[in-house]
């Protein structure tokens, strides 16, 4: 199901004006059908990166492939990927004309356009907005019109640049819901940039930190699921295949995150103060890409879960693929979003 969508190697990008390198990505693969979140502060290069992937900016160093073809002059990427600005700009026309634009230039028939506009507006929750003037909309409405305008061409990839930057809390929740709806309705890959951490974890399938133009895949396990209460003091998070204790917090949480290095391993069952003690099977062992002394051990506990240990520990504990191992982590090691 998930295929390699973008593959980026040795990408370097500097603005032509001042030659300052704003993006420097050695290696990054993005799979299709997922929500990829690009998390980073303002000025970290998120917008530039999205625009490069959308071919709005021509990259000058390195290689990027889109569906295994070079991104340069890639017509499919041009026609099937759409970028939505932070503070999107609507054409000074009606909502209908805005949303219909992508279909009009693709020479779709008017009946077809009309029904698709209606449908797409209902996906973004703006039924009946067709005749409104774009200038008269609120910021949140403008954003959703812009998303509808992008969606109507049924893109393979939808880029959303900081959709939460200029909207209030209620609208953040709405966009969250919208992303889920888009995923189910259109099945497209969504690459979204944000600096809103809770939003990032809640919507993401995979998360990517971007800082000063460099990406880092975070060393953390991300589980999607819901909270279940079956204890007075502790509460459990259930991903469907794996459940574990987590801090007692009130709220509607969808995502649990556990850093690799907060998970301890032992080769035999031991008594610990940690709430979570589980048995698993090692499915993969690999060297951490940024530190030769560390290895990342992937285990199967119903879900895949990863821990990070030193090479020395690996040797001493004689861990190997297929071997049995015990995992321990405290309830407080779990972050909920």
């Amino acid at each position: 199901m998930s295929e390699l969508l973008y593959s980026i190697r040795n990408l370097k990008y500097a603005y032509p004006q001042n030659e300052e390198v704003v993006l420097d990505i050695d290696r990054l693969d993005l799979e299709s059908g997922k929500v990829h979140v690009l998390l980073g502060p303002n000025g970290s290069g998120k917008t530039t990166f999205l625009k490069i992937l959308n071919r709005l900016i021509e990259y000058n160093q390195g290689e990027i492939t889109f569906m295994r073809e070079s991104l340069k002059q890639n017509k499919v990427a041009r026609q099937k990927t759409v970028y939505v600005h932070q503070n999107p700009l609507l054409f000074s026309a009606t909502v209908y004309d805005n949303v219909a634009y992508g279909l009009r230039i693709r020479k779709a028939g008017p009946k077809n356009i009309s029904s698709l506009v209606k449908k797409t507006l209902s996906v973004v929750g703006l039924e009946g907005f067709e005749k409104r003037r774009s200038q008269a909309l609120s910021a949140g409405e403008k954003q959703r019109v812009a998303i509808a305008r992008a969606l109507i061409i049924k893109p393979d990839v939808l880029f959303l640049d900081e959709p939460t930057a200029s909207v209030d809390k209620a609208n953040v929740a709405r966009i969250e819901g919208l992303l889920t709806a888009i995923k189910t309705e259109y099945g497209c890959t969504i690459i979204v940039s944000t600096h809103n951490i809770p939003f990032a974890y809640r919507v993401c399938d995979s998360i990517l930190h971007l800082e000063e133009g460099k990406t880092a895949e975070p060393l953390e396990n991300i589980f999607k699921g819901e909270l279940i209460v079956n204890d007075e003091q502790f509460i459990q998070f259930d991903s469907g295949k794996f459940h574990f204790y987590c801090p007692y917090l009130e709220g509607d949480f969808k995502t649990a995150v556990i850093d690799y290095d907060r998970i301890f391993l032992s080769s035999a069952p031991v008594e610990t103060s940690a709430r979570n003690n589980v048995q698993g099977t090692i499915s993969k062992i690999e060297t951490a890409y940024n530190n030769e002394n560390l290895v990342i051990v992937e285990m199967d506990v119903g879900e895949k879960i990863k821990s990070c240990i030193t090479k020395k520990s690996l040797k001493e504990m004689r861990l190997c693929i297929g071997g049995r191992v015990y995992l321990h982590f405290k309830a407080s090691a779990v972050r909920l979003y």
Partner: protein
Amino acid sequence: MESFGRAFQLIFSGNREVFTIVFTSLYISIISTGVTACLGIPAGILLHFNTFPFKRGLVAVINALLALPTVVVGLLVFSLISRSGPLGSLNILFSPWAIVMGQVVLSFPIMVSLVYSGLSKVDGRFYETLVTLGAKGRNVLAATLIEARFVILSAVLAGFGRVIGEVGVSMMLGGNIRWYTRTMTTSIALESSKGEFSQALALGVILVTIALLVNGIIHTLVKER
């Protein structure tokens, strides 16, 4: 004050000569503006979308040409279309078409410059939006024309304002021929030289009214954006 009274009397009495003069002015200016629009708008758009060496220089030259004195344009075109000039065989000197030609030369830089500067004020996100939605060259052009319609319209109206109010070109190239090339401005010049101030004033009132109308339209359009 007395001439003001006479002026209004002339306007409202439906004086045939006043009517013809006003009509000739409007007619010639509208044709000039139309021709200039057909040339100037595409030129402004081309200038906006293309980069080439010396572009900044060209833009500077066009902006400098905004201040082109009407009599210089008149003189230039005169020497072109005079019988002994290179375009003498067209035989259009002292005809409305001569005025049109001069006015086109006069208002062309205005339209190019206003269209160009208007387009450069169009948000950069606009082009990115078009491209990301899959627009190709022709679509971009069409969308830009629609998006910048107010800018373009006000450029056209500014060109019209310039030509309807100019006297140098009309006088030199049209010859101020009664019933034929006498426009509001040349007529005002003539009547005031004859001391016929009320006739001059009547035309002046009409001219100012038209100028105010055009400016009013520009203002409303720009405000509406």
